[in-house]
């Protein structure tokens, strides 16, 4: 994954670069919006991380310019101000997500994974989470490169969980999705499909955690 990092603070930038490189990203770091535009003119990136507080042209303007130039890759904005106005403005200018500085590296990695998965889903129709792969075009599932048999309702539930991961999915959402199959479905039915999916996923290091009063979350199980 090629990632463009636009950040003028050397300490922050080198920290992010080190962390992201370790996580397998090929990071190109530039210190200004102007430099970023030069690089973008010749290179293509899978995702961009842009700081708002850049020396001349700021990150919001850069994002806007990139979007108006037809660049569609996901953009994550970094900001030291967490005023609501900044967040809304960032998303309005075409950013896909934002993070408030200071942040923790695992959080940044999780956000980037989610962004990339969503942009891939839009282009390639293959959803991935850990060892799990869902080809939404052919409606086939693979886990650890092995075919995974899923019933149509199980597929629907799986697709929802995967699109949301690592965020949890609300139980009402799953219920709504399933009413497409059965008109009178009970919340218990959702639990039935969840437990079936659990049985199929758990041997491969994937867990479906129940969130009390909320729903379920697809996660990589920590233990054996």
């Amino acid at each position, binding site marked *: 994954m090629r990632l463009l990092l636009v950040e003028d603070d050397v300490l922050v930038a080198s920290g992010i670069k080190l962390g992201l490189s370790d996580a397998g990203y090929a990071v190109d770091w530039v210190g200004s919006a102007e430099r970023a535009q030069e690089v973008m003119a010749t290179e293509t990136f899978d995702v961009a991380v842009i700081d708002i507080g850049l020396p001349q042209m700021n990150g919001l303007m850069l994002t806007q310019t990139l979007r108006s130039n037809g660049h569609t890759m996901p953009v994550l904005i970094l900001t030291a101000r967490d005023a*609501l106005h900044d967040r809304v403005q960032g998303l309005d200018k075409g950013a896909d997500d934002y993070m*408030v500085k*200071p942040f*923790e590296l695992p959080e940044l990695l999780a956000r980037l994974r989610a962004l990339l998965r969503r942009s891939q889903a839009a282009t390639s129709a293959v959803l991935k989470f850990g060892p799990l792969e869902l080809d939404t075009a052919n409606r086939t599932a693979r886990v650890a490169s092995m075919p995974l048999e899923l019933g149509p309702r199980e597929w629907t539930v799986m697709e929802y969980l995967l699109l949301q991961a690592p965020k*949890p999915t609300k139980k009402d959402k799953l219920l709504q999705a399933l009413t497409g199959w059965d008109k009178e479905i009970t919340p218990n039915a959702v639990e039935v499909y969840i437990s079936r999916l659990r049985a199929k996923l758990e041997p491969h290091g994937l867990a479906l955690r129940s*969130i*009390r*009063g*909320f729903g379920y979350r697809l996660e990589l199980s920590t233990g054996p």
Partner: protein
Amino acid sequence: MAPQVAMGPGLQRRLMLLLLLPLLLVSLINIGYDVRLADIATNQQDKQLAALAPSLADSVVAKGNSERDGVGLLMSPAVGEFLREKHDLAAFALLNSEGRVMLGEEWLGAYPPSSHVAEFSSEERDGVTYRIVSQRFDTAAGDLTVRIADGSDPRQQWMHGLWYKVFWPNLLLAIVVAFAVNWAVRRALRPLLELKVAVEGRSLRDLSHLNPLGSPDEVRPLVESINRLFDLVNAQAESQRRFVADAAHQLRTPLAGLQSQVEAWAQALEGQSEITLTTDQVLKLRQATRRTSQLANQLLALSRADVGTTGAQPSQKVDLKATCETILEEQLAHAASKGIDLGLEAQPVRADGYEWLLRELLANLVDNAIRYTPAGGRVTVRCGRRGAYPLGPLQPFVEVEDDGPGIPPQDHDKVLQRFYRLPGSVGDGNGLGLAIADEIARLHGARLSMEQGAYGKGLRIGMVWPEKL
């Protein structure tokens, strides 16, 4: 226009107008009355002239010898007295039937009236308006017309009098009133101007009370209001000063840890190109930086929760269930990493408030619960409606319950103070979370309430909306 600048002239203008308008009205009435008086005087003058005309006709005793001689006249005492009295403002003439002057002033020559009834006219001569009576008589000298002119026209005198009796006195009065108003307004407003000077002279460092006893009764409430405002600003400034001092002190601790670590490594690097760090050292460093970051975030949150920042924007109907769900999603990873079962018991409910502040409140409560509840514990976020007191009306509430160590009832007040941490508390809190939550609850007209959790342990902490916000 700034109100304090407009106050003096504004009041002055208004007072002046209010005083001068009646004055003008009185002058007009005065003039009207004078006109009536002049009319009455004119009538009297006509009567007098009408009475004199026959006397003059009677004074004609003989016909003159020739046309040129005129007539023989023996002036009656009444006419003689009149002419003497009016001196050169009176004149008379006797005209023959062709209108030629037989006797008296040449200028009074005129065509005789057709009848024997007295006729009145006014004539201007040398700047004097004469009232003239003309009447035909059959006298001893034949058919003659008698004309008597009286230049002491009361109307004209009234015109003169108008200037002296009405215009000048009123003008003088108006000028006196203007000066008096100016002086009186200045004098009456002096306490306000003095107050203005006293308030302008104050700096933020000197907001001691103004002395209300030096002001008149009407201004005293204003002085007292200003003093109350000073008290508020003082309290605010004092709490800000204390907060900044506390904040700086609190930031020092984790920064000192970080600095000592890095200084030590820098020292160890003397003459070497690299050193080896142990996992433990790096993790400790990360712990310290995360604490510093968290502290900075919380200090910001606290400053934003201050009343001043929300004043500009109105509160909205907040979907509490959605807010609780957002918080749950945000904190799930944190809870999972500590092995805590974070759950939700949310009824759909909306309440007046500030969504971002309520999120901050819940985030702090959930963060606290996860922080102090041991692994394997349960933390539950709730919202819904309940009575603030038994049998009270159902009001929206949010709360977070955990089954951790809880807070002893005697410490409930203390933990809401900024930077206060319970003695012997575990974890790396900074004593700000609950203070922020309480500040936000206050902004919503409530306070943070605390009680023991459901199973006789842990903590249930949250806020119930007051009946009217």
